[in-house]
């Protein structure tokens, strides 16, 4: 590697423990100016995302059905800028008098300090009890060491997860950090049963199927669906997992910051934009360094993927609702409960997978192949649930076809050369 160090124009020695963005802003006014743009609310340029605080349950009516009995069926909005976190978490109707402080975790720069103070007891403490301690939204302190301005992982759940996976959270490369500072929050999580600690389910791997398997092994349940009578799992904003499990951009070494914090010229100087929003609002900075085709052309490519994902999700969501109804109807008709429970198990898997795609905020762009795959698997499980529910009700099972499928050309050639061999079942 090169041993030429980039000269750093200026590093203020801000006092450790400083949290307020204004404080940082005094020394880094250019970054601060872009940070203030996070207050802007517009959907300009975006077809499925954007920053207006509109209702996701209106946009995707099937969500209301699959989330029935859970807070997400009451209020669920499109996300907006980092400066709104405190306002939004406080006013959302998902918060009730029994809510716990775990919900503050990704909303405030105060959290790491509070956890250092209170230990794991923080998480299960009543949400309203800690309201006064949460004075800051997401600020510079969430990602930067104030003294050196180096990127740091401050959020305890990510520090824990990395450590569990054998990675030292303080020994990461800059390029890793340019993604992992976002993975502090833009990840799927759950609360442990006992202490309600915010935990990332990454032990089997990062793909939706591996995470589903993790939850199955754990027997984890977020809530009981009142119509399907199924213990369900809720998926949340798995941007990092979707992106990092094999997407073309991740494999090309691209980081979240490359697209969401592009270098911008401000007064003849390059800085990292701190306006975290849809890159479709500033494709020229975000994409056109790497892509030589025109901006309009590239945007059409994004929409080509997103339109297909949105249509597929609409359909898969619908089939998921039908699965819930099929189970409910069979139940009401006095179906065989043993068979019906198999349907319920399938429904749970189907729902987690479609929820994954719905909760992921890029409408498939972060990893198109994986997103299509996940939706298709959801549809498969949902229809299997319907077939089982119908079987439980009518006593008539749908046929099954189980045959080994070689797939690879090498395997087909091998089988042709040894045709006598008995074909094992798939």
């Amino acid at each position, binding site marked *: 590697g090169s041993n030429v160090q980039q000269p750093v124009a200026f590093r203020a020695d801000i006092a450790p423990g400083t949290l307020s963005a204004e404080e940082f802003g005094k020394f880094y006014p250019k970054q601060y100016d872009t940070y203030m743009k996070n207050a802007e609310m517009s959907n300009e340029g975006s077809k499925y995302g954007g920053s207006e605080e509109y209702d996701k349950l209106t946009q995707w009516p099937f969500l209301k059905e699959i989330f029935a009995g859970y807070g997400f069926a009451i209020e669920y909005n499109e996300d907006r800028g980092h400066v709104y976190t405190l306002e939004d978490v406080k006013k959302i109707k998902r918060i009730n008098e029994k809510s716990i402080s775990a919900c503050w975790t990704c909303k405030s720069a105060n959290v790491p300090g509070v956890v250092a103070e209170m230990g794991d007891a923080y998480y299960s403490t009543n949400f309203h009890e800690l309201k006064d301690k949460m004075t800051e939204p997401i600020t510079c302190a969430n990602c930067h060491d104030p003294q050196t301005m180096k990127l740091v992982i401050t959020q305890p759940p990510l520090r824990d997860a990395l450590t569990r996976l054998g990675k030292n959270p303080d020994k990461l490369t800059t390029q890793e950090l340019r993604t992992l500072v976002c993975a502090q929050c833009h990840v799927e999580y759950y609360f442990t049963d006992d202490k309600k600690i915010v935990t990332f389910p990454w032990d089997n791997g990062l793909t939706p199927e591996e995470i589903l398997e993790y939850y199955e092994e754990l027997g984890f349940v977020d809530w009981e669906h009142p119509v399907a009578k199924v213990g369900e799992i809720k998926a949340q904003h798995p941007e990092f997992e979707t992106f990092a499990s094999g997407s073309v951009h991740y494999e090309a070494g691209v980081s979240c910051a490359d697209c969401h914090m592009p270098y911008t010229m401000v007064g003849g100087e390059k800085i990292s934009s701190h306006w975290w929003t849809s890159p479709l609002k500033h494709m020229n900075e975000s994409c056109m*360094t790497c892509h030589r*085709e*025109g901006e309009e052309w590239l945007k059409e490519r994004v929409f080509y993927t997103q339109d297909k994902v949105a249509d597929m999700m609409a359909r898969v969501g619908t089939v998921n609702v039908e699965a819930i109804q099929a189970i409910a109807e069979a139940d009401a008709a006095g179906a065989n409960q043993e068979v019906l429970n198999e349907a319920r198990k399938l429904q749970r898997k189907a729902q987690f997978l479609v929820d994954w795609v719905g909760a992921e905020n890029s409408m498939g762009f972060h990893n198109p192949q994986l997103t299509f795959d996940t939706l298709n698997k959801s549809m498969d499980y949902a229809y299997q649930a319907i077939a089982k529910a119908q079987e439980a009700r009518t006593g008539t099972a749908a046929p099954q076809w189980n045959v080994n499928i070689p797939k690879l050309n090498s395997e087909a050639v091998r089988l042709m050369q040894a045709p006598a061999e008995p074909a094992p079942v798939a």
Partner: protein
Amino acid sequence: MKPSHVEQGAPGVSGGTGKRRARITLVVGLLVVLCFAVLISVEGVHSATKDPSFCVSCHVMEPVYGTWSHSAHREVAGCNDCHTDNTNYFTKTYTKATAGLQHLYHNTFSDLPDRLRIHQANTALVQDNCIRCHEDVVRNLNMDPERRCFDCHRYTPHSNYR
């Protein structure tokens, strides 16, 4: 059938109308300076502007300079070998002067596009230069007149930069 939808991004140069008058005055000024230069010696200007180091005297030219200087072309083709009309002395002088003025104008008023992109109109000129040097290699091929060598040779010579 659409043969190609690849657009060469046109730099979105915008200028506030309020500043326009002052600018025109300045541009005229610049023109005069340039004409002087021409009067003194066209050759002088040519020699002053022939070296890639002249091009990179502008900040915004650094990335393309950097990528070029790591390319196979560094030893064999300078900026002007590709970016001016090398048909004859006059076309070379003309294209240098007009492009030079444009760049000078934009640079002086610093209404710079975020990402430099070659102007669509200038691609034919570059293409002609590719063929000028590589005629022997490509003499068998029958390429579509709309197609550019650098549609495929996407990283010749500039590559990408972050």
